[in-house]
């Protein structure tokens, strides 16, 4: 609500925000979460907003949600000085299935292993990602200039080489824009399919324990202040 004290942490993104938010609360942090369904992020119509930090374009209901969230913390979704974890920009569950539906993969070993697969070049993959994610990248690029932002790549749910290659490439593209990224694919112990004790009951998200592990590693790396 307007006038509320500033939070310790802001978590913004799709359903992968949940485990981070829960873990932060469990650590005693004043965490606030703005969850927007992955389908809306995948639409690639979110855009930067000079005051709110984020706009959902023509989606009025979503904009009201964004405005209310911003109002509760001084008027911006990404308040200056408050660490922000963003779980948007990937949305692999929407991006990869169509990409790979007819056997396409950007991983040459993956392609070579099965006659039904079709290799896709790095340049084509970059162009494909850009087409589907350029608006989100723009939001992240602008936010990262003024806010203490870390993008959290989603956990590895299925060890599918095409999905992992796409995720890894998104991470590289974000980092090329000087956006800080925590990618479990580069983390010892997190770089394989999500362990059962870190998997939520729905089987497609990390649970609070996984969220806590991510926060712990962020703190060790100096990417997030401890509570």
């Amino acid at each position, binding site marked *: 609500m307007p006038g509320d004290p500033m939070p310790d942490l802001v978590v913004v993104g799709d359903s992968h925000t949940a485990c981070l938010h829960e873990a932060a609360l469990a650590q005693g942090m004043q965490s606030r979460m703005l969850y927007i*369904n992955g389908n809306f992020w995948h639409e690639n119509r979110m855009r930067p907003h000079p005051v709110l930090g984020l706009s959902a374009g023509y989606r009025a209901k979503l904009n009201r949600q964004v405005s209310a969230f911003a109002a509760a913390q001084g008027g911006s979704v990404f308040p200056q000085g408050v660490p922000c974890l963003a779980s948007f920009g990937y949305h692999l569950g929407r991006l990869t299935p169509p990409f790979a539906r007819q056997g396409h993969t950007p991983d040459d070993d993956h392609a070579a292993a099965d006659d039904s697969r079709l290799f896709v070049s790095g340049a084509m993959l970059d162009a494909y990602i850009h087409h589907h994610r350029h608006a989100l990248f723009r939001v992240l690029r602008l936010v990262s200039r003024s806010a203490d932002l870390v993008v959290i790549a989603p956990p590895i749910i299925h060890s599918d080489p095409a999905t992992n290659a796409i995720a890894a490439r998104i991470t590289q593209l974000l980092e090329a824009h000087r956006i800080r990224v925590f990618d479990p694919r580069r983390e010892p112990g997190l770089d394989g399919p999500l362990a059962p004790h870190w998997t939520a009951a729905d089987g497609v998200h990390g649970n*609070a324990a996984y969220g806590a592990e991510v926060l712990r590693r962020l703190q060790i790396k100096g990417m997030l202040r401890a509570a």
Partner: protein
Amino acid sequence: MKKTPATNPYMALPPQAFWRSGVAEAGVFGLRDLWRSKWDLPADARFATFGSCFAQHISRALAARKMGWVNGEPAPAGTPPDLARQFNYGVFSARTANIYTAAQLLLILRMAAGDSAPDAAELWEAEGRVRDSLRPTIEPDGFASREEALASRSAMLRGMRRAITGADVFVFTLGLTEGWENATGQPYAVCPGTMGGQFDATRHRFVNYRHARIRADMDACLGLLRRLNPDIRLLLTVSPVPLTATASGNHVLTATTYSKSVLRAAAGEMAEDHAEVDYFPSYEIITGAPTRAAFFEPNLRSVVPQGVETVMAHFFGGLRLTDPPRHGAEAAAEAARGQAEAARLQAEDLACEEAALEAYNAG
């Protein structure tokens, strides 16, 4: 004794057998029975299209009519059309780019059939990028590495195999007799140094393929096609697009006439000699006297849309899609895959909402 009227074989011929009634009086838009397919094809017949640039029009026309155009190497789903086009997806039935000569087709088919290794053709490296000598402009900026170029070539070969095995008819447009080879006889798509590579007069040689070689190469191509798909038919066309330039030493006009004549003769003979080969006269429709070159742009080279439409009207008018459909199971399987993906996404959506709501509950 009553005198019998004089008779001869021409007396019983139809109007289209005579120039006056078949062409001069009919005019370009009155041409009738120019082509009738040799074959009764299934009602849902599938076509694979390859060859020189004019073959692209056949791909587009089949796709636009939602007829069975096989795309063995489509762009990933979700690729916008302009991006697909930029990376040469959807132009032919696999990302071969233009195949101008019979020798080039034969090499690619040998690779696709496993008779030649995918790395049996040169890669050209320059300024940190790599281009495929069989399709130098397939990627706008070339490939990042030799490995990537070879992986992409392998995908193209897979796509070509898919197209051949999935098609009822392999449509191939013969484009040129002139080409360039390296010292081992590997044909190039273009002269090295024009769209990639570096020209080296000691290693690169000009070839003006003669009729006998083209015929032999096309016979070998037919054999490979039938090996990959015993039921496939080969429909040949000759590109009406003149040569941009000739390296033969002749005037480009006579070089063009020579080149197209040789190709036309080879295609005609193939169709005469093989029941599974037919010839479609797109070349005649565009370049024939009735058009008075009206189907060419002012550069007298590019074909105007109306010319393409006229060609395709004859093509679709002459097809005999009279046999029962045979690809229903494949279409059903594709639809089932789409439904399964939609159901999976819906289930995941539900899981996402629940995960987030639980987190709000925790706060």
